[in-house]
């Protein structure tokens, strides 16, 4: 039997809808003073009750490539775990779709683990640094849903390891699922879960276009 090429297997996964390529997302924020209550609520609701929530401390670097004949630059986000040896994660996010009939924001999403040469590689391709920040916080799971509670930290250029300042006095809360195309019930599942976090945090579809020109 002839062996199929990697490209063939990839199109097979796409066509048969088992390649997760859509992200369903709800976002909200909570003040530092109230985050403990939210953590307790999440510990009670989520799967990883017996273990404490998984922590993360990541540096995210957003690189952009201006392409001829297109208005929007191509943006790729590269995440590196600080203080832990793990592959770099590269992520492509498409234009968000805020459809009134859908309970969550939906955008195309591609996650790709890669070796540590990625930033150098992208730079050689012509990508330029757009912005960078540090995200530090906790991750919970509930079925296929992922809930993160994270603090965003500013970076003083060239001083990544120094004590950097938080961007605000609150935590960003994100509820997301990355699923293959055509799984519409995901949104409903997320809406129900988001209801259970009220009134501590109000998770919503955030329309970035309304926020002005923020990437």
């Amino acid at each position, binding site marked *: *039997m002839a*062996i199929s090429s990697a*490209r063939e297997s990839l199109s097979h996964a796409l066509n048969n809808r088992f390649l997760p390529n859509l992200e369903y997302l709800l976002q909200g924020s909570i003040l530092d003073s109230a985050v403990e209550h939210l953590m307790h609520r999440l510990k009670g609701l989520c799967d990883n009750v017996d273990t404490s929530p998984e922590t993360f401390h990541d540096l995210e670097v957003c690189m952009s490539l201006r392409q001829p004949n297109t208005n929007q630059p191509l943006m790729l986000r590269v995440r590196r775990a600080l203080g832990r040896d793990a592959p770099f994660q590269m992520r492509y996010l498409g234009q968000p779709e805020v459809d009134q009939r859908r309970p969550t924001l939906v955008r195309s999403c*591609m996650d*790709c683990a890669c070796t540590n040469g*990625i930033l150098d590689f992208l730079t*050689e*391709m*012509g990508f330029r640094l757009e912005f960078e920040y540090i995200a530090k916080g906790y991750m919970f799971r509930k079925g296929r849903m992922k809930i993160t509670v994270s603090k965003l930290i500013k970076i003083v250029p060239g001083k990544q390891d120094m004590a950097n300042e938080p961007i605000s006095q609150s935590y960003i809360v994100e509820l997301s699922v990355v699923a293959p195309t055509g799984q519409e019930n995901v949104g409903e599942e997320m809406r129900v879960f988001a209801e259970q976090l009220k009134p501590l945090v109000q998770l919503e579809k955030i329309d970035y276009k309304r926020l002005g020109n923020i990437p």
Partner: protein
Amino acid sequence: MGVTVLQPYPMPEGKSGAYIIDHLGKRLLSLGATHAGQFLVDCETFISTPQHGTPTRAVHVLHNSECPASTFSIIDNGTGKQVALVADNIFDLLMLKMTNTFTSKKQTKIESRGARFEYGDFVIKLGSVTMMEHFKGVLVEIEYKPCITLSYCWEMIREMLQGFLSINVGKEYPSYFTTQTIMNAMGQQQLHKQNDIYEPMDTIKQYLEQFTNYRKHVQMHSAMGGTVGPVMMNTVVGMGRP
């Protein structure tokens, strides 16, 4: 995962690629190797659209059926700097997002595919190289699994190549592994690749080296009106095969 050496098989006059592959396969089987599936290594090259003031960059994207979940890429920035990357297969889809900047040179899509054999600690792959369905040559890949440093097992691999496949191979390390002198911030440094820990990327780089030779040969061939160019001479002639 061990050490892999890739060797082009010199094509004798008047013999077809299929004949050579068949002949080598039979030889391996009669010497006690067992047939163990198929393999495929493919390579597609994307070229940056010319922009003012920047050299043309090339991104080579390769796959190896031995590492089916990975996509290997090597970027050549046009000024001699190369950066290698190993990523998930999704990387192929990301490349398609950049078609305005990087266009695939479809006519140079090249692959080596064929049968895979096992003999004790060795894996031998007989690849027939095709570019756009045209046969280009035979590449023999030989892997010695228990070792991760070429300098410790080169003699054994060499013996295997000579004894099993009757390819006459010199005592010196293959060109990919030979010592290179580079200049960097630390001054002049010698790289002894034969003493380094072998990685899957090294297999890919050897394939890219060979594929580039086959591609160049096509360009030379058409440029020189059908005579064999000097690039091909380096790769095939001079290997001492009777």
